[in-house]
């Protein structure tokens, strides 16, 4: 994979994974004393979901911008796989 795309994909997927894991954890812990102390009736959970919902389009935009120039020149493979970071 192109180095820019690989790096951007790594960041993009990591951010999403952390966000979704946080929501999953809060869901699993809901009702426990720890979750109650942190989030009450999971209002923070709703807030997290909203943020997550908005983070997907925003991070998609960032990912698109970050990898916009990462394709090989149109019409021919000018860069060898080895040089492009594979």
């Amino acid at each position: 994979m192109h180095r820019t795309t690989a790096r951007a994909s790594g960041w993009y997927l990591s951010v999403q994974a952390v966000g979704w894991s946080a929501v999953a954890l809060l869901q699993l812990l809901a009702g426990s004393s720890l979750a109650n102390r942190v989030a009450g009736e999971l209002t923070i959970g709703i807030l997290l979901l909203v943020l997550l919902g908005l983070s997907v389009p925003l991070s998609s935009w960032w990912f698109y911008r970050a990898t916009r120039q990462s394709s090989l020149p149109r019409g021919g493979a000018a860069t060898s796989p080895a040089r492009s970071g594979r």
Partner: protein
Amino acid sequence: MSTGATIHTAAPSVTDAAPLMAFFLVVAATLLLCLLFGADSEGIDDLYAAGRSVRPWRNALAMTGDTITISLLLSCTGLVSVAGYDGTALAVSTIGAYVVLQVLARPLRNTGRFTIGDTLAARFDTRSVRTAAAVICVVVCVPLCVVQLTAAGGASAAMLGLSGTAPAQLCTVFIGGMMVCAAALTGMRGNTLLQVVKTLMVFVCLVALVILLLRSTGWSPVRLLSDAIDRNAGPVGYFAPGRLYGTDLTGRLNLLSVQVTVVLGSAVVPHMIMRVKTAEHGGAARRSIMLATGMVTVFALLAVALGLGAAARSGAQAVGQFDLQSSTAILSLVQDLVAGPAGDLLTALVVSAVFLTSLTVVAALALSAGAALVHDIYVSGLHRGRVLPSTEIKAMRWATPVIGAIAVLLSLLAQNWHIQFLAQFAVSVSASAVLPSLVYALFWKGCTKTGLLWAMYTGLACCVVLQMFGPMVSGRPGALFPSVDFAWFPLATTGLVTIPVGFAAGWIASVRTARSREPDHTARYAAIAARSLLDRPREDRVL
């Protein structure tokens, strides 16, 4: 996005003529578009991939249309109003599907011509790989078609003010027949246009409804939220997880499983992958997905707002009295919010949007299944690609109606059965069999042909077995066979187990067969890796 919770009683009926007239107006317009674009589809590129010339904005609208299935459109609002947090979490998960697709888009578009089998064959061009891809494609598409047709038949009949099984079956046959026309005559080019029209119509309906809803609350979203909470107090708080599946560990894992499956599976259903391949090049595909992500986010926010509105105005219990799956919550909200000619007009718009939604999604699914059978099995498998394009087009013209007819027949048989779980099953198969195979074929140098086959077949088999012995098939009132109990698997959606199993099977088989790799293994990976980055725009006709 359907769940296990099903409540059946009478739906609200509409007796005015406006919805019926709008329904037939949309039918006439759709038929006209089918005929116009039927004449325009000439080559196999046109038939399968709309000439690979769909611009990003149109492609994004069409992708959004592919995502908004009838189950999502109708049950999303109902689920948010009945299940509060759980419904909202599922609506947000739909947006999450685009996280995966954003990363896969460019390689998917740039490698392989039309189908999943084509993409996998770019790495391992064997009959067994193409057959496996086609089998999985059909296993995903046919159940989804059946669920869509059944839901569409029931919902259309209810919205037209008809009750009972016979009108629902009649609507199913009618929509099925239209779908066959749309898929067989227009191909992907016509389907793209129909999806664009449908997405715009759905957005117009939802935006109008949300504006009316906010006007009724004095333009205060906070009041909407607090009304929803106040009217729906219960043992489980409205914004706490557990209203849908329960608060015990199984219930929580169930919710998590549905979310994981929706996020990872919805992205790689066969008709979405075919849609990605209609973009001009890989960069355009990625741009389309970025735009579609925004559109689906707006759709989810609108659906959540309407769900909260239904909960605030009628209360979750009142909404839940209607059928939660083919939910008429949107229609009851229309009738609640606006009366008179404006209400009739809005109702007519909603009915038309529902009809067009079912038609376009089912046509896209039939097209994908037909492409898998004809292109992967008949052309590439049986005849090694030595088939004239005209013969392939002729075969497609036969295959799509046959698949459509089978789906309609199964929908008629399943009209009064609880088959909504088939949608979850299909998405689980996508997530457990298609996703691992695509990720390994496109991004992992060490993947072998055996590993790919193991990932696909193990994921599929695991989904079938666990679903069969799960709570949606037997052992509880809303199950397929409620009177018998052979369920031992506790989760309604199998993804939480089957996705890791699919990935693990592919990895283990690849590692164990590493010594028997083909001589050109490394070269083929290098070629697919380079090709996935090479954006070659097609500069002929533009849709």
